């Protein structure tokens, strides 16, 4: 009798938890879906750097922290998708500077963008992450020596970093992160759909599913 009571209670508690997870996640998906339709601007701002075609019907948004290892490891998958479906994908880069000092790195990226070298700089910083991060902390001084090989004018870049327009970009992206309830990086959205479950393979699958839907053969 008591054993049964205990077992039933245990099952009820675990099942309650499980349904709670399910309920919360489907609610969040619905919220994000709604936001994607109603206020698409939360996902894509005019200031956001993009790759691929502007007319593409599949929009892949990535909230990235330049100092986040997983963000760096996802980069090749996005590149491969852009190559595999030319003209069908628009990639949008958003900043999520969660690590200490990451906002400085975002400033470097945006200043490099003013010299037309954003994507090269981002790739280089991803590749050399172990040089300029230590225990999840950013060491900005180790970034400068890396930049000249890209042909960047580092003096100009360091002046540009203080540009108030960059501050506005960071603040807007931070506000949108808050609005979307994002607390982890990378945060991917494909046409407003969150990456769920998280992973490289699910990302590729989600992109392919959206391509099939928007570009039926």
């Amino acid at each position, binding site marked *: 009798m*008591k054993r049964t009571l*205990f077992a039933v*209670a245990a099952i009820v*508690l675990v099942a309650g*938890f499980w349904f*709670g*997870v399910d309920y*919360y*996640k489907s609610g969040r998906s619905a919220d994000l879906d709604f936001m994607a339709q109603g206020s698409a601007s939360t996902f894509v701002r005019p200031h956001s750097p993009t790759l691929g075609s502007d007319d593409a019907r599949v929009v892949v948004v990535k909230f990235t922290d330049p100092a986040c290892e997983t963000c760096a490891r996802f980069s090749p998958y996005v590149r491969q998708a852009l190559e595999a479906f030319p003209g069908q994908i628009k990639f949008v880069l958003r900043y999520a500077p969660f690590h200490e000092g990451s906002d400085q790195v975002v400033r470097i990226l945006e200043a490099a963008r003013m010299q037309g070298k954003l994507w090269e700089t981002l790739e280089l910083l991803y590749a050399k992450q172990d040089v300029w991060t230590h225990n999840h902390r950013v060491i900005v001084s180790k970034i400068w020596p890396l930049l000249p090989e890209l042909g960047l004018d580092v003096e100009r870049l360091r002046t540009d970093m203080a540009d108030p327009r960059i501050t506005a970009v960071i603040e807007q992206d931070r506000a949108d992160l808050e609005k979307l309830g994002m*607390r982890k990086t990378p945060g991917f959205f494909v046409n407003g759909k969150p990456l769920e479950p998280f992973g490289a393979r699910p990302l590729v699958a989600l992109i392919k599913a959206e391509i099939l839907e928007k570009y039926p053969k």
Partner: protein
Amino acid sequence: MVADRTDTYWILVFLAWIIATASALGSLFFSNVMDFAPCVLCWYQRICLFPLVLILPMGLFPPDRRVVRYALPLVVVGWLLAAYHNLMHAGFIPEELQPCSKGVSCTEEYIELFGFLSIPLLALLAFSALLGLLVAVHISKK
């Protein structure tokens, strides 16, 4: 009469186990499903809470009153931490005294259910209920 006393004991510890388990699952829901990062004080309270999920059933099968001896220290420490956390949360303990360094501040406000139930308050309520139940078990012996 003896059987009655055992039943009272059993139900009280069983209730304590339900509260401990529901709280443990709830805290995992906040951290792992809703992605709220736990602050340092929350971690210490979790250390006091999570073991109860496994320790309390040991006093249920077979009924063994000594479980109160083993569970009570965890509950008392957890209650003290929760009380301290709530005082800090309410601003009675100044912010610069808080033991959290980087990551999440212990005064960070994640949710307020019904306008007043914060996560630290939920923890304090849970530990208070656990403390009450275990003390009741101890008293019911006499």
